[in-house]
Structures are given as C-alpha cells and as structure tokens.
C-alpha cells in the first residue's frame, strides 16, 4: 500500500518537476517591487489575505489600524474611541494575532498583545491581513493570523510629498505627512503623524438613576510618531536599508459606565529600529537583519495609588539564505536569535528570555505558475527548552474559468508571555507553550466582462489550540495561569465583489462588496473551575460579522456607504451574559482635483450614521453619530524610467 502511495507521489512530483522543458535562461529575476511582507508574498500564496492598504482607496488616509480593519468582518475588541483595541482572528484571543512590521513581530513580550488603536495607517504603504495559523512562517503567536505592515523600498528616482489634515467631532485633530525622495541608488522616506482627541462624546448612561445623557470624561489622547526609512544600493548586488519608528502616546483612561469617574492614564513610548543587508546573486539571495525594540508602558491611577512602569526590550537578529536553483523551486533556510528583557515591579527573579529559531521554507510551482505548493518548518528553543516543531503545508491551484483553490494545514504555537511566567504572585514558570493545528480551504472565482467584474470567495477553517493558557484562582484564592483549556474554532468566510467600470471621459465606477464571517469558537476542555464554560463560545468572539459597502465614483468624485453588522458577543465564560449585536453605518464622500504634479482631495466622513447606541466591550460607551473632514495634498514627480528594487 505504502509503495503505491510513494509511486503516486513520485509521479505527481515528476509531472510537476520534470514534465517541463529546461528553460533557456534559468537566471532568476527578482520581482519588480519587493513587498515589505516579502515572506508572505513569496511563500504565502496559499494563505487567505486581504490588502488593507488598498481597502480605503480614495477615502481615509488617517485611520488607525483598528479603524481600518473594521471594514472587514473581523472582531475588534475596542474599549472606546482612543482606548485599547485588540483583534481576534478566526475565533482566537487577543494574543493570538501577530502584528508584523517589516517582518518583525510587535507583540509585547510582557502581555502578548498589540494595541492596534495606536498604529496609524499613514505610516505605511503596505498593510495586509492574513487569516489563519501561520506560526511555521511567522513564529510564536501567529495562531489566528497576522497583520503585516511595512513600506516599499522603491528606489524609483523622484520626489513625492503627501500632506493631510483632518478635524472631527470631539476635538479630533489629525495631521500627517509623507515624503519620499529618491535618486539613482538611494531612497529616503520620512512619515510623521500627530493625532489629538478629547473623545468627550455624550452617551446615555443606563447605570445612573434616571438614565441621564452624560459626557465621557478623562478620555483625552495624544499620539504622535515618526517613521523614517533609508535604503541604499551601493552595487547591483547589495542593498542596505534602515528603518526607525519612534512613537509617543499619552492617553487618559475613561471610566466604564459603572464607575463614577476615573483619573487613570497611560503612557506608551516605542522606539523600534531595524536594519537589513541584502545580497542578491544570480541564484541566491542572502539577507541579514537586526532589530531593536524598546517599549515602555506606564500606567497611573491615583484613584488606587497605582503607578506601574513596564519596559521591555527586544533584540532580534536573523540570517536567511534563499536559493533559486530552478525557476520552479525556491528554498530558504534561516536562523534567528531573539533576546527579550523586561523591567517591572511585578516580576522578580528572572525576567529575560533567549530564543533560538531555525526555519526553512520551500516553494514549488509548475511552469505556468498555476499550481504551487509551499512547505514551511520552524523549530524554536526558548531558554534551551524545545517548543513544538512547527510545520505547515499549503497549496494553491489556479483552475480554468477563473477558479482558484487554496488550502493549508498548519501547526501553530504560542509561547507564554512574561506576565504568565513571572508575575508575582501567581506567575507559573512551568507553563508549556500553547500548541495546535489549523486547516483551511478557500475557493475563489473571478471573472471580468467589461464593464463588469465579479469576485466571489468562500473559505472554511477548522482549528484547535491545546494547552490554552488561562488564569484561574487556586484553592487559596491566588490567581495563577495554567495550560488548562482546549479551544476549538471553526467557521466560514464569504466575500463577494461586483464591480462596474465605464471608461468614459469621466469614468463611472460602481462597486458592491459584501463579506461575512461565521466563527464558532468553543472551549472543548476547561479547567477545574470552568465547568460552566465547557462547549461555550469564547467571550468577545461574535459568531456573526457582516460588512457590506456600496460605492459610486464619477470622475474624481467618490461616494461610499459602508454597513457593518457585528453579532451578539458573550461577556462571561458561561455565556449567561452578553452584549447585543449592533448595526453601524458609515458614509464617505470625497472629491479630488488634479493639476499636473499636484493633487488635492477633500473627504467628508460620517461615522455611526444611524446614531446607534452600542458597546464593543461591556459597559464601555461608544460615540454616537460623528463627523470628520479632511484635506490631502499630494505632489508627485517620479521619472518614467524608474527602476524598482
């Protein structure tokens, strides 16, 4: 029996590998533009992705990542405007989605999460949401999926400048600037932003006697930052690049509906730097990268006399060698060393961690690239202890008549956070990494028939995470984390686009997009005190998420209505308490004016158009109908004979 399988397997491989004529010129050419999420671009062809950068074309440029992602049927746990927001992908927790900047994971080593409300989209050219487990490619934490942000290093020759400013309800002011200067063999890009808001919106407080309309207090935020990138190509084989991202956030923490007032505030300061050296040879690419990440979170609450300073530092270095020994084969190997340290009063003893990682990817495609397969392997040693060997296999097949089938099977893992390991009291240094598996399959169909264009995608996923870390009180009431739960997530995703484009003197565009996600994520095993949570939906994971938008464009005028429905989500593990589902509407109107190298655009946005009263986190009020107006100026002078790098 086995023999037969081998034979069939060999024949399949043979038909892919040897069924082709040798190519006359087998020198592999680099793609014209290298994406910042290069690994995903090259080896993630079978993964489910959404381009976030193009999602808001013609509209918002000043969103934060949380606002941008809201146009997709994913669940965002937001504590309100200007407050903490985390994302749950495919039914997993906040710590199960990695945010990667230029390929480096930004998950905080102390608490394991990334606050996506702090990441402005104006700092990045490229943003991609990748759904589904991808720990073999991106490491610990990439269980539900990843969000990848970064900048193109285009050495194109020319100058580009973009400036934007907006003002909105509740004293919300945002300014941003993007500059890009490039000559024959170098480019410099500087992007900066500043965002201040009072967030003092009115809401109905159902807790107070008489249910009065009150204003949110202690909600002022100030967020500013700069990201600069420099790339230099000393010779045709070498490229050096440097990125530095500095950001400073001060925000007050507003009271929940059940608190009378709050004096709490939080300061976040980040310094993130990285450099890369890339050597491109005829059949190989060698990359060496190093990163330094310094993150400070200071929390102050005079109300309970609390001042907590948390600082973590990460040093990351990675080396990677890629072989293009045949146009249809690509193989890479890499090793990495990650060092993390944390300073806080809440830990004692050891508060550092060394991780050694080895990884390899292999991609195989047939000659016309209609069929491709990827295998990824990753092994990490955390302070000398092995973590699960993580592998993934994926394939993508382009069928006739515009059909595409993709599928993946992945192992996933997440190592415990520093808080899980070292917190006093209760931290559990004996915790094992969470580990699981994940599989998905996607069927896509697209068709173009001028002036119409259709795209329909349907995906199904099924995954499990074992040794899920849960904090529970012990028999003396001391909270401690344990590898106690098992979580089973499964669901369906649907997306369709119908486009209409009539290319006249003033082109007419109509776009109807709809997307829906069904996520069932339940505890299939629980700890001793969580019997009532068995087989219940995870908290703050709505089963239903629906988005639909209708946009209309005439020449340089654009109008869009976006409708969002987020289903009911449970707030307690026994599913006895829930917050209601809600419908939100959003209207965007924009008009551009072009004149030579110059372009102006004005944009008006109405959020929560139907003035819905809703909560994303229980007892955390959200703003009613509110407005934002912005103006964006673009200057672009890029040579036509540009060389992309």
């Amino acid at each position, binding site marked *: 029996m086995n023999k037969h399988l081998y034979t069939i397997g060999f024949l399949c491989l043979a038909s892919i590998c040897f069924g082709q004529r040798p190519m006359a010129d087998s020198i592999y050419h680099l793609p014209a533009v290298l994406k910042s999420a290069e690994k995903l671009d090259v080896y993630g062809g079978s993964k489910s992705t959404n381009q976030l950068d193009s999602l808001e074309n013609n509209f918002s440029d000043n969103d934060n990542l949380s606002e941008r992602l809201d146009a997709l049927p994913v669940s965002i746990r937001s504590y309100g405007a200007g407050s903490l927001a985390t994302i749950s992908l495919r039914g997993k927790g906040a710590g199960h989605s990695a945010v990667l900047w230029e390929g480096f994971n930004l998950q905080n080593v102390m608490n394991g999460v990334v606050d996506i409300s702090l990441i402005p989209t104006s700092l990045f050219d490229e943003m991609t949401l990748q759904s589904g487990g991808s720990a073999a490619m991106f490491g610990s934490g990439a269980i539900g999926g990843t969000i990848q942000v970064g900048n193109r290093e285009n050495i194109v020759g020319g100058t580009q400048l973009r400036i934007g400013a907006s003002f909105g309800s509740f004293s919300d002011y945002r300014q941003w600037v993007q500059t890009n200067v490039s000559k024959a063999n170098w480019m410099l890009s500087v992007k900066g932003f500043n965002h201040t808001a009072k967030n003092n919106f009115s809401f109905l407080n159902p807790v107070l006697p008489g249910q009065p309309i009150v204003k949110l207090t202690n909600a002022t935020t100030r967020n500013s930052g700069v990201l600069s990138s420099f790339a230099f190509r000393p010779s045709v084989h070498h490229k050096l690049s440097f990125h530095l991202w500095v950001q400073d956030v001060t925000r007050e923490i507003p009271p929940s509906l059940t608190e009378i007032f709050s004096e709490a505030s939080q300061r976040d300061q980040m310094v993130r730097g990285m450099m890369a050296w890339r050597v491109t040879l005829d059949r190989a690419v060698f990359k060496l990268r190093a990163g330094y990440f310094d993150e400070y979170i200071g929390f102050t609450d005079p109300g309970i006399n609390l001042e907590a300073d948390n600082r973590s530092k990460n040093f990351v270095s990675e080396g990677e060698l890629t072989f293009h020994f045949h146009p249809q084969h690509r193989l890479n190997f890499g090793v990495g060393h990650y060092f993390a340290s944390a300073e806080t009063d809440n830990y004692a003893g050891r508060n550092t961690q060394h991780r050694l990682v080895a990884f390899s990817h292999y991609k195989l495609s047939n000659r016309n690239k209609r069929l491709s397969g990827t295998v990824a392997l990753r092994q990490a040693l955390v302070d000398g202890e092995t973590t699960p060997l993580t592998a993934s296999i994926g394939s993508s097949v382009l069928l006739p008549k515009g059909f595409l089938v993709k599928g993946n099977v992945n192992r996933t893992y997440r190592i415990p956070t520093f808080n899980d390991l070292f917190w006093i*009291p209760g931290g559990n240094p004996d915790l094992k990494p969470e580990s699981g598996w994940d599989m998905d399959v996607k069927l896509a169909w697209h068709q173009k028939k001028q002036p119409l264009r259709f795209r329909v995608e349907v995906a199904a996923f099924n995954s499990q995470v074992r040794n899920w870390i849960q904090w529970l009180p012990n028999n003396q009431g001391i909270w401690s984390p344990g590898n106690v739960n098992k979580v089973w997530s499964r669901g369906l995703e649907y997306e369709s686009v119908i486009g209409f484009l009539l290319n006249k003197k003033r082109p007419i565009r109509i776009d109807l997009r709809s997307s829906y996600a069904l996520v069932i994520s339940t505890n299939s095993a629980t700890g001793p005190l969580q019997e009532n949570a068995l087989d219940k939906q995870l908290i703050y994971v709505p089963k239903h998420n629906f988005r639909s938008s209708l946009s209309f464009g005439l020449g340089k005028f654009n109008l869009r209505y976006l409708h969002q429905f987020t289903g009911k989500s449970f707030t307690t593990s026994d599913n006895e308490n829930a917050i209601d589902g809600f419908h939100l509407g959003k209207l965007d109107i924009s008009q551009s004016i072009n004149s030579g190298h110059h372009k102006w655009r004005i944009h008006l946005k109405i959020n929560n158009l139907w003035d819905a009263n809703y909560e994303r986190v229980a007892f955390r009020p959200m703003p009613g109908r509110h407005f934002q107006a912005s103006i964006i100026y673009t200057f672009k002078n890029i040579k036509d004979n540009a060389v992309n790098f």
Partner: protein
Amino acid sequence: MQSISKFLMLILAGSLLFLGSCKEEIIIIPEPGKYDNGILVSNEGPFQNGTGTVSFIHRDSGFVLNEIFQTENNRPLGNIVQSVSEHLGRVYIVVNNSNKIEVVNAADFESIGTIEGLNQPRYFLGIDGNKGYVSEWGDTGSNGAVHVVDLNTLTITQTFTIGGGPERMLRLGDRVYVANSGGFGSNNKIFIYDVNEDLQENVIDVGDNPNSMQLDQSGNLWVLCAGNKVYNADFSLNLDASTAGGLYRINTLADEVVESYVLSDKSVVPGNLVVNPDRTTLYYTGAGVHEQAVNAGALNETPMLNNFFYGLAVDPQTGNLYGCNARDFNSNGAVEVYAPDGTFVTSYDVGIIPGNVIFR
C-alpha cells in the same frame, strides 16, 4: 376557517399543557414583601467592565431570582458590589468601585436613594433609625476611614480617617469594633467607637491584617487575622518577612487579647470568620473551610471542606454553611450549602463572583 380555529385551539391547549408541566418551576412570590422570606447574595460582578448584582434565594422553594436590583429599578448597580446589609426595613448595597451605597426598601427592593461621596466603601453597619457606619479603604488603601452616615438625608455627617483598610464592623452594646485589614499594606489594629458620642474609644493590637470578627456565647470577641504576606524573588513566600494568619480572642470588658492561635502554615490567607447560631463554633476560609470550637483550647488546622470559597456565611435558622463559589470569576457563581457536619445539602446558581450572603 373553523378548522383553522380548531387548530389554533389545539396549539393553545398544547402550550397550556406544556406550561402545566413546567408549573413546579414557576413560583409566584406574593407582593408586597416579595423579598422578605429569603437569603440575599451580593455578587461583585466582573472585575473591570461589568456590574455587580444582588440575588435572592426564596427560602421555602429554593427558587433564585438574580439581578433583583436591576429588575426593580431598571438600572444596573455598578462596579464591584462588595456587600449587602439589612437595617430597619432597608437594604444597604455597598458598591465598592462606584464609590456609593444604594439604599433600597428591603421588602420590594425599590430604590430609596444613594449615599455618595464615599471612597472604595466596603461594609455598612446600621446603628439606629438615624445613623449608620460605613467602612472604606480610601483611594490609596492607606487612607481608609469610617464614616457616620445620616440615614434620613443619606449624607455623610462625620468621618474618622484611620488608615489601614477598615473592613468588617461589629456592634456590641454601645460600641462598634472595626477591623483594619491593612488595605494594600499591613495593619494590626481593631478600632473601637462609642456609638452614642461617635468618638473613638480605644484601639487594640491583634495579629497582622485583621479582616473579620465574631462574638462567642460568652461575649468574647474573636478576630481573624490574614497575616502579612511578602513574596521572594523566586515567587515563593518570604517566610522571614511574612507573618502567619491567626485567631485572636479578646476580652471585651478589658479590651485585651486573652488567647491567640497562630496558623502553622504562613502561606494560608484566612478570611470570612463566621459563627454558628449557638455561638460555639467558628468557621473561616483559608486552605479550604476550617472549623474551630470556641472552647477547644487549640487550633484545629484540618479543614472540614477543601473547597475554595470567596465568601462564607452561616444560616442563623439552620446552622448550615453557605459558601460562595466564584468558579472562574468570569461566569455565574454558585452558593453551595453544607450541613454543619460538612455534608453537601444543595447549591444555588447566582450572579458573577458571589461574595456576601445575608439571611432575612
């Protein structure tokens, strides 16, 4: 047409039958005074983003009504409902993180008013028709106070700032004893107030971090101390710096500690001292539930139950123990009832993080 009506009649009859089969679950509590004959449980509610609740257990039927404040007043209580206390036909619901006490009519739970201006309040003790005492930790945990509250105007009339996390209060004659639990730090004092003059009368030193008190049959005051816990760099308890919890007996005529029993295990954090109806046996939580006869002469360190209870109470009518099982602290908890000999009697599903039980 007629057949449709018949069909509808059949459905109606069927549903009535169905209702009939569920009849034993429908308890109609006669109004007024629908919350008179039963047990009140305060449930803290989820830590950050939630509201606490009060549950009512009907004594005869065992039927539980949850969220009765919300039901009667159409609004939630607020964040962290610490305790409930009954006094002269009213129930005082202490809402810790919302810095208030909601005052309701005990019979129907309709709101009478709110005592505001508090700072992390913990417990209420009614003194007479005109005043009550409130213990609170204060915003730092070291600027705790006892307030005298006018029960007619529901305003604070006097404040004793005493620090150290004032916790439970107990009245004996004209005196009120206040246990200073240490708040976020450490303290070892019992403050005594004269309720006629509203003056501090005396202070008694006991073990570290006293949190609860009971009177025995002979009029002795028993004080339960948690002990002060200090942790080492390697997550273990710093045994040198920590102190053990213990039980202290105070002669209330002399205001002196006359007997002290110190737990042998310093890691145990005892709390929730309660007494049986005869006032001969004390119970408290620690490493499980402990039982201590007041005249035993030695500490009984073998727990009678191994459960971890977040709160503990004794039914003055039956002597049964009511233990608050908060489960995972993020789902509805239970009140579990055990006979004095430790046999399980029954369990009631209540709200999130039940912590305080009173009997009416």
